């Protein structure tokens, strides 16, 4: 077979072109963190022939590249970025367009308009309030003030209220009433009553209340949206991780084809360093496969003719020819993506605290308002006064406090967690986390540090093998080289795929690799070892182990104290899992699980009424992360797991998990306090409004007053000593 054939990869599918042939492509770059990264990446990519410009967005990790013409090669761009040491994958243009956050933009515009309206309407309503207290204000001036307030407030309220109107309408069509229904009815009724009062030259118009209400509510809504915005890209980034282009063999010629076009039976080439495009069977070649992303196994799997390959696995050392046994959308990775999607759907069915409160609040307030109108009219108030009082009921019982009660607390809680290195993706996540009663840990990379470390090796032996280790790209050899530090490299090194490396150290022939390769009868089946020996000399064994995180047992003990049960689910072999479980003090553990097993166990626990917190880092955990009641991933996790998780902890300490649960529980308590306060406030305000004791000034005071109380309760520091 001719391995030197240059493969013409067709990446044109990822480029958006205009008529003139200028193109634009987007890459997802991971690892860029600072100004120096921006400079390195942008300068290098701009230097690729045919590239007109490049711009890296550090917040989203997207690199937008402008191509000057058709001669520019997208693959060179990917290679350039990867050559700098960042991981890069191409982003489907359709997905890139879908990723634009339209909802957030709309909310920000609505918030701006409501803020403008709320500020400027005060110019006219404050003089009007003065008139309420017998200050010098003729009726004609009062009416003029109200008209000017109407001119400012009405368009602003109608524009800024659109998100609420739309959501209220959608909810009514489903036959339910969410919080947006009373808000919409309140705002519209307030505007109508204010207009009629102004036309009839009445004393009371509530234009300011309508806009201020929306402004306060939009603050809560926008904060909540910002929390959620990151979580959206979950499935998108997982799919971007999939090898975009596969290499198909027809006869002796190699062609790049889009992964979606692969059919069962195609012969495909997987070069070292590439991910396996679809599920398949090895036809020729031998190599080592890193399944860590798929199964969580730490040991590298040697593969040879006849071995099964899973989509998404990384081919490490040798060139493989495989036969496809599944199409892209039937492959392992796509199945995991589907499981994640299903998990996200069940999660969106979760009823949030604020919506539960709304279910109680809406019928009560509307019944009271209707009773005020009908009863007031029946008792001889006249329809105009009765309607005014009904509107006053809707305004003073305004759901501002309710609308802010949960988001304000959740923003305060997540910024507190952020300072401790935990990123929370949504307010709902905090609510769910507070309810958790069972914690599942993945082993590799969560309970452990996730990279092999050499154990119990005398320094002089490490130094002996180091020259060969430095020549190898194998992860275990790299760990050995890292232990030894800088030094000489062996001469005439030859690496045999899946076996080891051979070379000359000070003129003596030596080998480093698998037991059989070095010349030892393989006794132990463990994959986490390397053998080293000079030709005809004693062979030395190096054992590698994934060490548990420093505070793992402490964190687990703390979780137990908090009344949670703990379990380990791992895709690794039973031996290493048992060792780690013993080291951190967990009795319940299961090993050798597939991603689907993990998701099924989570579903099963759910069916038995448990609320599960899943902590995992691999692709194999992504489905379970998405399906669990709440989920966490370490910062070193694959992007897909980070995206599927509700929370990401960036520090080294596993103590972040109990810390987050603790904060979530206290946030829940505080949100409930806020709801309680709103209820008490409404019990006082409603009768006052029914009795006609409320005027626009009192309404404005009550409305902002209750919102401020709720915000202050959210922001107050915890009344407990730290650590208690």
């Amino acid at each position: 077979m001719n391995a030197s054939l240059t493969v013409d990869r067709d990446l044109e599918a990822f480029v958006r072109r205009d008529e003139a042939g200028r193109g634009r492509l987007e890459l997802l770059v991971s690892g860029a963190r600072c100004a120096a990264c921006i400079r390195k990446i942008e300068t290098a990519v701009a230097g690729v022939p045919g590239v007109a410009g490049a711009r890296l967005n550090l917040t989203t990790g997207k690199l937008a590249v402008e191509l000057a013409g058709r001669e520019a090669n997208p693959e060179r761009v990917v290679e350039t970025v990867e050559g700098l040491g960042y991981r890069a994958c191409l982003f489907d243009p359709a997905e890139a367009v879908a990723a634009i956050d339209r909802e957030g933009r709309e909310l920000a515009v609505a918030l701006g308009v409501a803020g403008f309206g709320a500020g400027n309407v005060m110019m006219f309503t404050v003089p009007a309030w003065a008139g309420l207290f017998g200050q010098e204000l003729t009726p004609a001036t009062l009416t003029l003030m109200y008209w000017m307030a109407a001119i400012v407030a009405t368009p602003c309220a109608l524009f800024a209220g659109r998100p609420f109107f739309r959501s209220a309408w959608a909810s009514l069509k489903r036959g339910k009433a969410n919080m947006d229904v009373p808000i919409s009815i309140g705002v519209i009724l307030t505007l109508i009553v204010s207009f009629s009062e102004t036309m009839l030259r009445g004393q009371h118009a509530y234009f300011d209340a309508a806009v201020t209400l929306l402004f306060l509510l939009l603050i809560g809504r926008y904060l909540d949206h910002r929390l959620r915005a990151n979580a959206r890209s979950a499935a998108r980034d997982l799919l971007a991780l999939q090898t975009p282009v596969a290499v198909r063999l027809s006869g002796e010629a190699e062609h790049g084809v889009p992964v979606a076009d692969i059919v069962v039976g195609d012969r495909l080439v997987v070069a070292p360093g590439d991910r396996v495009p679809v599920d398949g069977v090895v036809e020729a070649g031998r190599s080592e496969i890193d399944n860590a992303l798929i199964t969580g196994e730490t040991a590298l799997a040697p593969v040879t003719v006849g071995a099964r390959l899973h989509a998404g696995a990384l081919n490490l050392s040798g060139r493989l020819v495989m036969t496809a046994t599944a199409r892209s959308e039937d492959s392992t990775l796509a199945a995991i993506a589907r499981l994640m999607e299903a998990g996200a759907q069940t999660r969106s069915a979760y009823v949030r605290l604020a919506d539960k409160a709304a279910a109680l609040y809406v019928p009560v307030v509307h019944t009271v308002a209707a009773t005020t109108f009908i009863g007031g009219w029946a008792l001889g108030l006249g329809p105009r006064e009765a309607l005014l009082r009904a509107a006053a009921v809707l305004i003073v019982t305004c759901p501002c406090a309710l609308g802010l009660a949960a988001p304000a607390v959740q923003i305060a809680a997540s910024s507190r967690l952020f300072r401790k290195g935990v990123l929370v993706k949504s307010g709902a996540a905090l609510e769910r986390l507070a309810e958790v009663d069972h914690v599942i840990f993945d082993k590799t990379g969560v309970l452990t540090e996730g990279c092999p470390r050499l154990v119990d090796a005398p320094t002089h032996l490490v130094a002996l093998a180091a020259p060969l280790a430095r020549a190898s790209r194998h992860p275990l050899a790299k760990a050995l080289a890292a232990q030894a530090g800088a030094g000489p490299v062996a001469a005439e090194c030859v690496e045999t795929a899946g076996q080891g490396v051979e070379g000359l150290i000070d003129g003596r022939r030596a080998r480093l690799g698998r037991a059989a390769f070095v010349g030892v009868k393989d006794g132990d089946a463990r994959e986490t070892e390397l053998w080293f020996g000079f030709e005809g000399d004693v062979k030395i064994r190096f054992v590698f182990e994934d060490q548990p995180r420093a505070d793992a047992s402490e964190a687990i003990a703390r979780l137990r104290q908090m009344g949670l049960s703990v379990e380990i689910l791992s895709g690794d072999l039973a031996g290493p899992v048992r060792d780690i479980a013993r080291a951190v003090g967990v009795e319940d553990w299961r090993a050798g699980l597939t991603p689907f097993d993990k998701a099924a166990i989570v579903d099963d626990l759910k069916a038995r009424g448990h609320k599960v917190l899943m902590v995992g880092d691999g692709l194999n955990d992504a489905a379970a992360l998405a399906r669990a009641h709440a989920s966490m991933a370490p910062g070193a996790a694959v992007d897909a797991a980070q995206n599927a998780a509700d929370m990401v902890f960036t520090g080294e300490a596993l103590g972040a998990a109990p810390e987050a649960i603790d904060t979530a529980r206290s946030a829940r308590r505080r949100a409930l306090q806020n709801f309680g306060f709103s209820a008490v406030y409404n019990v006082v305000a409603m009768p006052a409004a029914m009795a006609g004791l409320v005027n626009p000034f009192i309404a404005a005071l009550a409305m902002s007053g209750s919102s401020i109380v709720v915000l202050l309760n959210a922001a107050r520091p915890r009344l407990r000593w730290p650590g208690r």
Partner: protein
Amino acid sequence: MNIILFLAPASIGLGALGLLAFFWTMRSGQYDDPKGDAARILYDHLDDKPPAED
């Protein structure tokens, strides 16, 4: 009293100007990459303008 008829529209106009400025900052992508913008000021030759709209 007539002064109100002049001052009220004038002040609303000023407020509207602020609102338009806010829309402009959003349109021109000034909130798209807060982290990157903070980093870009550190190098003189880096493009210090927000990206052009699609």
